[in-house]
């Protein structure tokens, strides 16, 4: 009896699918019936050729299951607005939200903190009972006055609403408007990102995008800054400069001949936001968190946008060419030049690390773009993604994921602590990439882990320079001698 390689491959895929389906059935058994029904819609095995991953998404989390998701405030303050460095972002409400999100996201920036930049600071209205009872608008006014007094070089203020604001009927829009007028038209942005809104961080991104539209773009028109356009102006949208990601991306765009006029929002400034509609093209990395404003600029200002992926050399080259296709031959040649320039480095990285990582399996569970975007980088190193899922993805994310995942990949949306633990226990991947809340769970189990939100104190991972670091880190995680010590020898 002779079996061809293809048949063997088919058999492996079929066996994987069967195991994954059985695994889904197994994890659902723990739930009460109602919950099992709800959770079943979020778990699936990807079937090649299907238009999406076959899971429901962007739906309320089930109470009590240990969802990994955050809230709208986290999406607005923590993700979109927080990194804008020359503005002061007030965590408006009780002290906790601002405290837990204080400087924990590694959005790198250059500036004199506390004087002209404020990213790694925690400004809060520290609500007390009396503020809940009598309202916080007066306090907010005073806070803005004190900010103007003590931090005179701030270029603007945002009000990041915490849960109580929307519940007690405060009018932060009126306060912001009044104060903006009083300070000669200063940009003051009220953001209705109360944590109970929506089902995850995702609505916070959207609300934050809308607030930029309403309170930055509208205002910028009133007092335009001096700005000379060139035909090669682009803006980086949806890169939060975690560990310096936007910088190792920007350098490539500049090297191919483009002029990056703005970074959204890692190491970004108010001026950059204001000037973005003047770009010739918006290049969008994190589709999930910033597609809204990209679409708006396309409709209102006629700025086209294009998604790109700067994880791993295959996707970087593809993306550079795609971006270049919007420009003339000079830029197209520039893209080829950049790809060529880094090809030696890329080959060296692959030569060094691929033999150490070839065939290793990975399970991912992250937010934003990463559950799909990083897959190419792993595959460049010969690694296989056997499961992936989004904390707060929508159906359009799961559609895009089909371009990345292989037949039979396990898909889990808004995974619960229990499900994730059982899945990893059964599948036994060589690496799990997820967040701080998951890290220690899996390390205890003896499974190598990398935080794929914060790059685990490392980074950047974007661009060619970042790929070398990514490869080193995955090797360091998987081939670490500590994992041979987890079982006592007696």
């Amino acid at each position, binding site marked *: 009896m002779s079996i061809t390689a293809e048949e063997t491959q088919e058999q492996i895929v079929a066996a994987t699918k069967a195991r994954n389906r059985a695994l889904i059935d197994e994890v659902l058994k*723990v*739930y*009460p019936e*109602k*919950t099992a029904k709800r959770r079943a819609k979020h778990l699936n095995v990807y079937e090649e050729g299907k238009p999406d991953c076959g899971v429901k998404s962007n739906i309320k989390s089930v*109470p*009590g299951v*240990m*969802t990994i998701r*955050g*809230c709208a*405030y986290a999406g607005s303050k923590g993700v979109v607005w927080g990194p804008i460095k*020359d503005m002061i972002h007030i965590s408006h*409400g*009780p*002290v*906790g939200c601002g*405290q*837990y999100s*204080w400087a924990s996201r590694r959005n790198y920036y*250059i500036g*004199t903190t*506390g*004087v*002209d930049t404020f990213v*790694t*600071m*925690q*400004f809060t209205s520290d609500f*007390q009972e009396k503020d*809940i009872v009598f309202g916080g608008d007066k*306090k907010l006014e*005073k806070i803005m006055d*004190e900010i103007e007094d*003590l931090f005179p*070089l701030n270029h603007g203020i945002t009000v990041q609403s915490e849960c*109580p604001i929307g519940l*007690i009927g405060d009018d932060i829009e009126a306060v912001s408007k009044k104060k903006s007028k009083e300070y000669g038209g200063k940009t003051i942005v009220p953001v209705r990102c109360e*944590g*109970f809104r*929506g089902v995850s961080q995702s609505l916070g991104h959207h609300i934050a995008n809308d607030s930029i539209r309403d309170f930055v773009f509208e205002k910028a028109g009133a007092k335009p800054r001096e700005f000379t356009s060139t035909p090669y102006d682009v803006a980086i949208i949806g890169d939060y400069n975690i*560990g310096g990601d936007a*910088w190792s991306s*920007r*350098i490539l765009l*500049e090297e191919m001949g483009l002029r990056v006029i703005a970074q959204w929002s890692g190491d970004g400034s108010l001026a950059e936001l204001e000037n973005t509609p003047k770009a010739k093209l918006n290049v969008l990395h994190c589709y999930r968190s910033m597609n809204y404003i990209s679409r708006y600029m396309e409709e209102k200002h006629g700025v086209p946008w294009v998604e790109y992926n700067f994880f791993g050399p295959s996707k970087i080259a593809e993306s550079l060419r795609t971006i270049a296709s919007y420009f003339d031959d000079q830029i197209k040649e520039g893209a080829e030049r950049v790809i060529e320039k880094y090809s030696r480095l890329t080959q060296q990285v692959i030569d060094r690390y691929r033999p150490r990582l070839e065939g290793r399996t990975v399970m991912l569970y992250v937010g934003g773009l990463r559950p799909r975007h990083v897959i190419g980088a792993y595959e460049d190193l010969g690694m296989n993604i056997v499961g992936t899922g989004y904390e707060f993805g929508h159906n359009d994310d799961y559609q895009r994921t089909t371009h990345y995942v292989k037949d039979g990949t396990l898909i889990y949306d808004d995974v619960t*602590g*229990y499900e994730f*633990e059982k899945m990893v226990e059964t599948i036994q991947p060589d690496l799990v990439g997820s967040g701080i*809340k998951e890290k*220690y*769970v*899996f390390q*205890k189990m003896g499974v190598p882990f990398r935080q794929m939100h914060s790059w685990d104190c490392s980074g*950047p991972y974007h661009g060619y*320079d970042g790929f*070398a670091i990514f*490869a080193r880190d995955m090797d360091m995680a998987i081939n670490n001698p500590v994992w041979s010590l*987890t*079982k006592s020898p007696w």
Partner: protein
Amino acid sequence: MTQNADNVLDHFNLFREPEYQEMLKNKKEQFEYPEPQEKLVQVREWTKTWEYREKNFQREALTVNPAKACQPLGAVFAALGFESTMPFVHGSQGCVAYYRSHLSRHFKEPTSCVSSSMTEDAAVFGGLNNMIDGLANTYNMYKPKMIAVSTTCMAEVIGDDLNAFIKTSKDKGSVPGEYDVPFAHTPAFVGSHITGYDNALKGVLSHFWDGKAGTVPALVREPNEKINFIGGFDGYTVGNTREIKRIFDLMGVDYTILADTSEIFDTPTDGYFRMYDGGTTLEDTAAALNARATFSMQAFCTEKTLPLIAEHGQEVVALNCPMGVKATDHFLMEVSRVTGKPIPEELRKERGRLVDAIADSTAHIHGKKFALYGDPDQCLGLAAFLMELGAEPTHVLATNGGKEWEAKVRALFDSSPFGKGCNVYAGKDLWHMRSLLFTEPVDFLFGNTYGKYLERDTGTPLIRFGFPIFDRHHHHRYPIWGYQGGMNMLVRILDKIFDEIDNNTNVPSQSDYSFDIIR
């Protein structure tokens, strides 16, 4: 291009390379519309002045860089100290993601906790259905022995009634009727994480002692010889609790640690994830009613819990994070007095060793000025220890400290010549501290990880102390209590002092005459 596969440059060095430096310079000049350099320097220098300090201290509404978190964080911490207990926070789910991250970043351990995931509809109609479904799911999935409920500010603002909700959930069959679901209302807009710790612990004790929310008869106290011990919200809980157990065992004291978080925050990596580990058993928690007395190591973490215990007929001993020789002496003598057990020779010897170590090193600490901030009890404990070492706790600040705390710190200053000229700052934040460090400089600063921004701005060397400590590993494994804890703190202080001396005496042909190998 300077990146290379053999020596990979990450963020530490990559961005220092000339191509990146050039790129960042251009970005700033062309696109950021920065303030002119002269203006930047002018304002930066102004923030260091007395004038700025006065303005800064006139703040009435704005808080900048506070040294406190919100109630439910403390409630979750306390709940994790009970055997196989799942903390359940009723309200928005993002909060729980934050508590879990925050605790995990400090302890480098998993933090299990669930949310009732309330959203807009719950804001309008109340979160009863979330409670009903949530309790059922948690009970079935994670099979805890107890679910300890607390609240986020959302649930508090809309006025959800935990007692009624839990009763209804039980009626609906979410969990069995006799299943333990203690609860505490923990509004984030009152107090801080230490208040939440207090409320949650009180909630658990009154649940077991006072008839489980009216479902069973209240327990009748049958006094015995045991003592209870409460550590409070403590970033050093792993090391501290183990040290206290060792001391009690040495003394032959029969004890119950209430809310014992020392195991759950120190589980082994051996191929197995323990969602639950250690913790005070539910039986011991109930039986703690019968103890002769309860010791609280952090009185400001137990402002409501201790009176509850006292009302049940126990003696309560309230301490303020005893650190160093005299405070440990007092603690041990109180334990001895209450239990009738003598302090063993071994502990006397440990005491002598700590005194010996202080005597060996005191010349390097004597007269040095320190600023410190943290939770109220920890500030009191550390300030007392510093004075014992002949050092001056020049600025003592607690964002979550109140008038009573302020008075206690003043009294402490007055008790020693080393407290002369020292000042206490209740309810102030780290931006106030920044002004203090610029205008009245000190030699060293004690504080948590966020203190590194103060160290960077003011040049005051930071000795990490308190919670959270994210950027140094494993400090939580070492006790700061007991004579052994005093020794640990002493070494930590001395290491920083000596490092500073070395760093300031190492310029060849300028200052290296003091670069001594014997100190």
